[in-house]
């Protein structure tokens, strides 16, 4: 069977290994680009390739998470690549002491807030995040799941960084409102 742009997602769902090869053929350049940007030159080529491998493996195992209707595969795999690379950096960074901590600007101001939203029920949380306004949601995910700097997000959206801050805070407030009653229930 011929794998092409139109059927590869369906075929990955059906666990056709050829469809994953199609993804490797067509998206390797992009995935490498993303992983290299995140891991930058201080990381071995070996790690880069290992991480790239992991990205494709995640695609294979999580294809059910891709939404045909609203998603775009290219954006989706880009996000996974970035997410995986950050995860990688974090894991391997633990063993490396020669890196400057400033390169590793991942912790943020969320601490107080996140204790509120760290709650048992992930399904409810997912629903709550999905209930956010589209743009707020994207900013939120970029910030808290892909660890983008506020400056950077502001640049991408062509807005002021104050506005990004405001939206993030609106997002957190939104989640708090949604989740506090729930948390009350659990307690």
């Amino acid at each position: 069977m011929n794998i092409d742009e139109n059927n590869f997602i369906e075929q990955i769902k059906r666990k056709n290994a050829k469809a994953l090869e199609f993804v490797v053929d067509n998206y390797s350049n992009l995935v490498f680009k993303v992983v290299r940007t995140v891991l930058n030159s201080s990381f071995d080529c070996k790690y880069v390739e290992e991480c790239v491998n992991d990205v494709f493996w995640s695609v294979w195992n999580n294809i059910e998470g891709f939404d045909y209707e609203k998603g775009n595969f290219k954006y989706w795999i880009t996000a996974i690549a970035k997410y995986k690379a950050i995860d990688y950096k974090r894991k391997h960074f633990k063993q490396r002491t020669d890196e400057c901590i400033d390169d590793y600007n991942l912790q943020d101001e969320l601490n107080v807030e996140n204790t509120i939203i760290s709650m048992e029920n992930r399904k409810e949380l997912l629903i709550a995040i999905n209930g956010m306004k589209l743009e707020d949601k994207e900013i939120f995910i970029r910030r808290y799941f892909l660890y983008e700097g506020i400056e950077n997000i502001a640049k991408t959206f062509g807005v002021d960084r104050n506005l990004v801050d405001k939206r993030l805070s609106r997002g957190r407030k939104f989640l708090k409102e949604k989740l506090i009653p729930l948390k009350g229930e659990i307690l």
Partner: protein
Amino acid sequence: MINKDFNLEEKDVYKLFNDIKLEESEFDEMKEEISSIQKERIKKSLNKKIKGQKNFKILRYGSIAAAIGLVSIIGIGTASPAFAQNIPILSSITQTLNDKFGFYGDYAEYSQIINKGVTDNGVTLTINEVLADDSKLIIGYTIKSDKKIEDLQVAGLSRFLKINGKMYGSNGSSTGDYVDDYTYVGTEEIHTKIPQSSQTFKIDLDVYDIGGVQGKWNIAFSASKDELVKKSEIFKPNIKIDLPDSNATIDKVVFSPIDTSIFISGNGKNANTKGPNDMFGYDYWIAFDDKGVELIPKGLGGGTFDTNKNIFSSEMEYVKTKGIPKYLTIVPCKIIPSAGGGVSTDKDGKETPITIETRKSKEISKVIDGVYPIELSQGNMGKLIIKEIKTENNRTTVKYATEGKAPYFQAQDVLIKDDQGKNIIIKDYVKRNDSEKPNEFTKVFEALDPNRKYTIYTNDFSNVEFREDLKFRINLNK
């Protein structure tokens, strides 16, 4: 990771990624494109992992064993290093371990003694013996270490194995026991196509990881399948079976001095198969001989499943029969495990969790009050009759019988728990001690304390589809 604070699973995060538009231009330009060599290397490594995933059938059987016996073979050894005390290393390891699980067969007689060992990083791996026939290789081995290595039951040797210089796809099973904290004895059955060209073949084990200890343990030896093959009776009934989810053909039935195997091939009926369960879900074949005695299952339903082509080959392995029956009667069953999932381990040792459909059966229990018989219903399957529970020499032996549709199958599920709900460790598995009374069994537990209350329990098998309507017969004439 910060997103851990959100309590989302990775798969949830991936769902969220549908909503963001990360442009390629946000990332640094690359000087050159990825070479096709590199792409091929990635593909190769991914394909290896995918193949590794297909092995998950065996692991699933780990959980089915758990569903029936409630304690899986893997779990037991780990929970109870003590119960290996009575394993003498002098005798064949494979024989001893199989006897322990009630898997009778003449393993010792057909074992080829190897006794080759290599030491690295404080760990000695010794291959003690090997057995082989046309479809499998059985290796008995010992691991000695200067520190205790946990969970060796799940380590397995098959991923380090080459036969005549080639890696191969396989499935199989492995069990073992800790003799003490520093000594582990194991036996592994590797089901694969053994080279047909000659009676002897070469095995290379290049082990680089033993339960997390890295090192180099390379052992080469050869094995012969001659003796076992010569003593095996092979039937090719070529029967076609129409199952709800698949069309299956019985290619071969082999009676060997160590076991009885049915080889099946077939194709799934559903166009949209995602895994072995959609293709060949009725993969637990309860077998009876011409006298209606149930064959003791060893490993049912393992095999290779190609979801692209929607074809599979599978094997039902039972304990050696006494003589060769005129026919076998098979009841295909589907078991929905009560405990979920497992992990699939790929060639690089990386683990991927697997989730599967689960259904809890209902526990049926009675307090042990010293009055026998104790009857325990097993739902539609039948019932269990506990005849005696006796503690002596530091062990408690339960004598019981089963009545019902599949006596041995039912007999596997007998457990005892204490007043805290804690399961009592099993010392010796279900045994059919008298072949004249095939529905009477014993099972040995760690000694019960006469001053405490215990409950004996089984379950109603509501997670088992016992499909008598699909029953068929395999005639064994040459």
